[in-house]
């Protein structure tokens, strides 16, 4: 479904990604894990079109989408909940979701999606007229995900959905991510919480200093001695 071939990218002269190869297949949850500054978010930004790649190609359903602007990527069925959530604090919860459905032309589909998101996150319904700024961290994360799935994307990119949240809230968010996956979205999940990411995903990539260091089945990676020692704190 999504294929990154030999991606090289960076900011100005600083190259951040050195030859990244990555694949997400239909229906999969794929985790991209690694330490801070490894280039995980940069990878996401290349896929969404926020950052143009220096070299390499990104294929989505066989189509070359390398360096297309985001407003051309979103309608292809790619949704993204960015790192740090980036909700529109000056808009109400409802207006945030309305923005999520910005590209939905059909009114009926928009209504259907809106209802689905409210079902998925009943708290957003309760707070629909509140300013998004006034939500708690967990609720803001729910809103960011809700906004990203308004178009019912076939591929959902989630960047650090657990960042800065209490464990109980993280569990709630992850339940919803599983639910979204079961509804048919393929997911590429960026996560610093490696244990959690390996639990929910079927395959995973371990990224270090702009390169894919390891990849494979999440279950076997969880037992890998390097991963255990470096990321899971097992000695």
């Amino acid at each position: 479904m999504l294929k990154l071939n030999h991606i090289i990218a960076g900011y100005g002269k600083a190259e951040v990604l050195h030859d990244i190869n990555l694949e997400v297949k239909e229906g999969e949850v794929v985790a991209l894990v690694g330490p801070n500054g490894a280039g995980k978010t940069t990878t996401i930004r290349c896929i969404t079109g926020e950052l143009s790649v220096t070299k390499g190609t990104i294929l989505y359903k066989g189509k070359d989408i390398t360096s297309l602007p985001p407003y051309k990527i979103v309608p292809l069925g790619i949704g993204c909940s960015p790192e740090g959530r980036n909700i529109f604090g000056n808009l109400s919860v409802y207006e945030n979701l309305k923005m999520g459905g910005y590209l939905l032309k059909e009114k009926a589909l928009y209504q259907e999606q809106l209802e689905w998101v409210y079902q998925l996150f009943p708290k957003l319904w309760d707070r629909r007229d509140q300013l998004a700024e006034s939500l708690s961290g967990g609720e803001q994360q729910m809103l960011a995900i809700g906004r990203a799935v308004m178009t019912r994307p076939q591929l959902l990119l989630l960047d650090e959905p657990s960042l800065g949240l209490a464990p109980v809230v993280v569990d709630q968010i992850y339940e919803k991510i599983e639910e979204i996956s079961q509804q048919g979205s393929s997911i590429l999940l960026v996560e610093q919480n490696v244990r959690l990411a390996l639990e929910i995903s079927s395959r995973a990539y371990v990224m270090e200093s702009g390169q894919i260091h390891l990849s494979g089945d999440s279950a076997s990676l969880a037992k890998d001695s390097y991963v255990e020692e470096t990321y899971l704190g097992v000695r």
Partner: protein
Amino acid sequence: MGVLYFFQQLINGLSYGSILALLAIGYTMIYGILGLINFAHGEIFMIGAFCSYLLIMNAAASFWTGLIGAIGGAVLAGLLIEKLVYGPCLKKSPEVLTVFIASFGASLGLRNIFVMIFGDGRRAFPTPEFLEGIIVTKSGLFLNVKDLWILAITGILLISVTLFIKYTKVGTAMRAIAYDPNAAMLVGVNSATLVLLAFIIGSGLAGISAVSYGISFGIVNPSMGYIIGLNGFIAAVLGGIGNIPGAAIAGYIIGLGEVLFVAFLPPAWSAIRPLFVWALLFLILFIKPSGLFRPNIKIE
């Protein structure tokens, strides 16, 4: 100086406030989307006034054609400034200072081109007959027909813009982009289109405002946009930058304040009329830098 005098001045203030309110929306809308203060907005206003003046005087056009010409001319000027100045500037070096200076340059350049062509003298704006009348109410209040027109048309425009920004998808996107351009991009908003739209709406309103100014003060000249443009900008700050209804309300506060300041203080003071606005700006920046109403931008 009775109640009557007060009401008389109130109407004058509201009429002047209408001109400022329409101008302030342009400043605040463009700031919201591009994060820059378009100091050439006053010149867009001036160009609008000149377009209607030239159409009516030299092409024997009707007042309404002149009004459409003012809107068209202002919109064209706004789009050209965006394409030739801000677009390239933001692409090459998106630093605040560069764009700020470019904005001043565009303002000075345009003003002086017009001085070169038309001279800096004041020209009488041709106010049509149907706007010239005065209605005297039973209580003895003198109402200028033109003031009533200005109030009515501005009122309709302000309500329309507010509803557009509040309820339409594109209006919501304009507010969203003001808060977080990156996140707006991620939901599929094409900011380039919205930038153009902001320049079209803002400049169009400036064109209408310019015609109001023309019939209200009876003159046009190349520097007409300078002081009033600054007042419009101050209204945008006072109203909470990016907040469109806020900018409009602040335009009325400044318009009313300035007129009442002159009306109720000794005549000798009227020379320091501009001081009122600057004192107000100083006070706001001192007490509540974010403005009277909620700014529509992300405050870190």
